[in-house]
């Protein structure tokens, strides 16, 4: 009843349709990207007050995150089924030899990641990646203690300066005078490798959101957390500005 030709057409058609759905979803979603991780434990470092002051969505502390899609529907880009965007889906055992994983905002359709059987929510078919602290904050931290806040502050300052050094204003956005602020959060392990990263507040311009993630990706490894900041992983959020005024 179903000839191989029909199956081929049906599969092809399904891929196309689902691809279109995915593309639509991706284009309308705030950009999120995350790397899968195994048993790394979380220390969420977000607080609502400062995050709100800077317009960053604080998913960890708000029951309804201001960017609900980002929290509730992690996008397929982080799927292990999209290896082109994730050269290093799992942190290698030896940290120093780990190639820097590339982060990608899913502007483009990830190849073959949309399953024909889940057309309405292609992302649901993929194993849920840890893309937002809100999803993992229930996990108990293995060891959470704090050093002096001064220590933490100077470490954070170093991280920020380090990341900023990798900022590249996308040429076409620059040319089109597109400017904006991108809020993002990310987690790192003790070696300074990025475990996950996501956009918490989109600039509204896909190229700038992607540039924020590219900046993080290129900045690896980040300065290693000081030993008195305990925990297997640290989460941080920040804002990067792509501006054309001074």
């Amino acid at each position, binding site marked *: 009843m179903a000839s191989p030709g029909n199956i081929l057409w049906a599969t092809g058609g399904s891929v196309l349709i689902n691809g279109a759905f995915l593309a639509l979803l991706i284009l309308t979603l705030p950009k999120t990207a995350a790397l899968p991780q195994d048993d790394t434990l979380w220390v969420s470092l977000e*607080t609502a007050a400062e*995050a709100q002051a800077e317009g960053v969505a604080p998913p960890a502390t708000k029951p309804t995150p201001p960017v609900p899609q980002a929290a509730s529907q992690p996008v397929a880009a982080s799927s292990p089924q999209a290896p082109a965007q994730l050269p290093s889906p799992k942190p290698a055992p030896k940290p120093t030899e780990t190639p820097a994983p590339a982060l990608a905002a899913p502007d483009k359709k990830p190849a073959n990641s949309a399953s024909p059987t889940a057309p309405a929510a292609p992302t649901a078919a993929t194993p849920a990646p840890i893309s937002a602290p809100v999803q993992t904050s229930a996990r108990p931290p293995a060891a959470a203690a704090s050093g002096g806040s001064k220590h933490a502050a100077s470490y954070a300052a170093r991280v920020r*300066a380090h990341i900023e050094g990798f900022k590249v204003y996308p040429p076409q956005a620059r040319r089109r*005078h597109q400017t904006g602020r991108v809020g993002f959060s990310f987690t790192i392990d003790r070696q300074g490798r990025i475990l996950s990263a996501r956009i918490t507040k989109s600039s509204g311009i896909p190229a700038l959101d992607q540039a924020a993630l590219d900046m993080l990706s290129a900045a690896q490894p980040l300065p290693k957390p000081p030993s008195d900041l305990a925990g297997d992983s640290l989460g941080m959020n920040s804002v990067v500005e792509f501006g054309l005024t001074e």
Partner: protein
Amino acid sequence: MSPFKHARLMATTALTLCLLSAPAFAQETNNLDATTQLSLGKIVVSTGKEKVAIDTPQSVTVLDQEDIDNAQAGTVGDLLEDVAGVDAAGGVSSLGQGLNIRGMGTALSESDSRVVFTIDGVTKFFEGYRMGSLFTDPELYKRVEVLRGPSSSTVYGTGALAGTVNFTTKDASDFLKGDDRFALRTKAGYVSNGDGTLASVIAALKPTENLDLLIMANSRSSDDYQDGNGDTVSPSQASGASALVKTRYYIGGDRQHSLWASAQKWRSDSWQMYDQQAAAFPSMVRRQTEDTNYVIGYDNGFAGNDWLDVKAQIAFDESATDQTDNEFAPTSLGYSSQYTYKTVQAKIENVSTFKTGPLDHFLTVGVQTYDQQRRNPRYSLTGTVTNGATTHPEGDMNRISLYVQDEILVGDKLTLIPGVRYDKSKLKPGAGTYVVGSTGTPSDVDLDAVSPKLAVLYAVTSRINVFGSLSHTERLPILDEIYTRGAAQTISLNLKPEVSENKEIGASYAQRGLFTGNDALNLKLTVYQNDFTNLITRTSNTAAAYTNVGEARYAGAEVEAEYAARRFYTRAAYSTVNGYNKLTGIAFNTIPAEQLNLTAGWVMPEWGLSLGWRGEFAGRQNAYSATTGAVSSTTDSHDIHNLFLTWRPQSGALEGVDVRLNWDNIFDVYYQPHLSYLPAAGQTVRLTVGKTF
């Protein structure tokens, strides 16, 4: 809540806080990553729609607050000495200096109108003979943009055949971080050579969420410095007091809609040489110079409406010198006299963003008015008053200008920037002005000019841009040129606008991640040829004092190259200019020597330290007799080495302090830049210590 969860939250607060205070933090650590030292990556705001220097299809240099602070300059000439294609001309002290861009401009009067200065969008102009052309203090500014070549004339200035220099004063928001309501910055400086001191206080206030206020006062003083031979150079002092009050009220929540006002004053009162530029005569005179600038502005970005982004301003500006106790020629020039240039200026500009088919447009449209009153009463010892002089006539000038510039994006690679400026001016002779000698009643002069241009930028690859521009720019004659007369020479009522046909081509290359992950390389080359017709020149015959007989060619090149890795950066800026009278073939004496500036620096973020070396290398240059073409004098080449250090403690009791130490001309070399009339300073140590509370 378990105790250990509490501890976790403490860490949370600390980390999140620091990472999020982005703008304030970025400002403080600007010098802590070497890539921020790259000049071609800076934003240019005065070319219509803001863009990055390397994407700008013309030759441009931006100095930001960090550059200005690091230069520790006493005068504007010092501040701009490292900028390719820009030279201080004439004198070396606060009064008596002029600027030369691409071989045009002196500290003398009329040809200075080819270099246009603006402060917060207000055009500055002073033609005071032997006094220089711009009276101000570098400390007042947070930003200086130098746009070389006449294509910048469209938006920024009438007849800017050489280029424009745009200054932006400091703002309260530069000093207020986050929710701060008040910030105080104090700064003290010392200059070893000439025993110079600087004291500066800035108070920045935000009494309500929507209101910013900046109050600043500076006092600078120094004696004459010593050159490399140990001889005192007179006059070379950099002295003056200045104040700035600037406020901005944000209307509504978004920061795009605001009303602002600024008041600025610079003054100096000292005994000076009658000839501050060249010290040609030993005679002294007392000069009280006051430069006043009031601006009220309105900015509205009309959030959500792409058609409107309006900036409007009205300004009153006055440059005035009160000269007394004139020992030079009290009988003929007046024992005391006043030189005042009062202008009232208004400007409204709108930038629209829209699409026509596949093209994106950023359209700038503006109207500008400029009313100038020039007065020069001179009082003899017996009390009689003369208005102006034969070579310094009183008069009024009214000008209205319209300009349109469109930035058109064609596809992903091509950008076209056509523009046109229309100027109409009316010149009226003032009291004491005659047709010839002291007879005849001069008439008004009406002039107009149309200056079109086209600039093209093409992105060959994501790293390589090529660009070019063609511009036809007309400079309308000024009061000096029309109404100057002699005992036997008449005024020059029939002068036509001076015309420049400028061709410019260039290329740029930008790459990130060349050897390491985040290093950066930028290169930019600009080559130009600027042909003048109707060149306005002073005559020595018995007909009109000025004529349009001249033809001239200025040609040259500017190269900027820079590289930065995480800790290291280096920059090079090279310029060469040739310029000659096409009728005689004789080179002009306003052509600077070939110049190369090199900088290499090392940044140590963990110590908050940045240090480096800066070298200035200038070639040999001749001056020629304008009549015979024979070499009349030669300036030797010079190599000057300087070292600098910036320290900003990141923690401890000294946090918030910034220390800058420059050791200039470390080998104490004697030299005199070709366009300078006086030798430059010998070995000099400059130190400033600032503290922000």
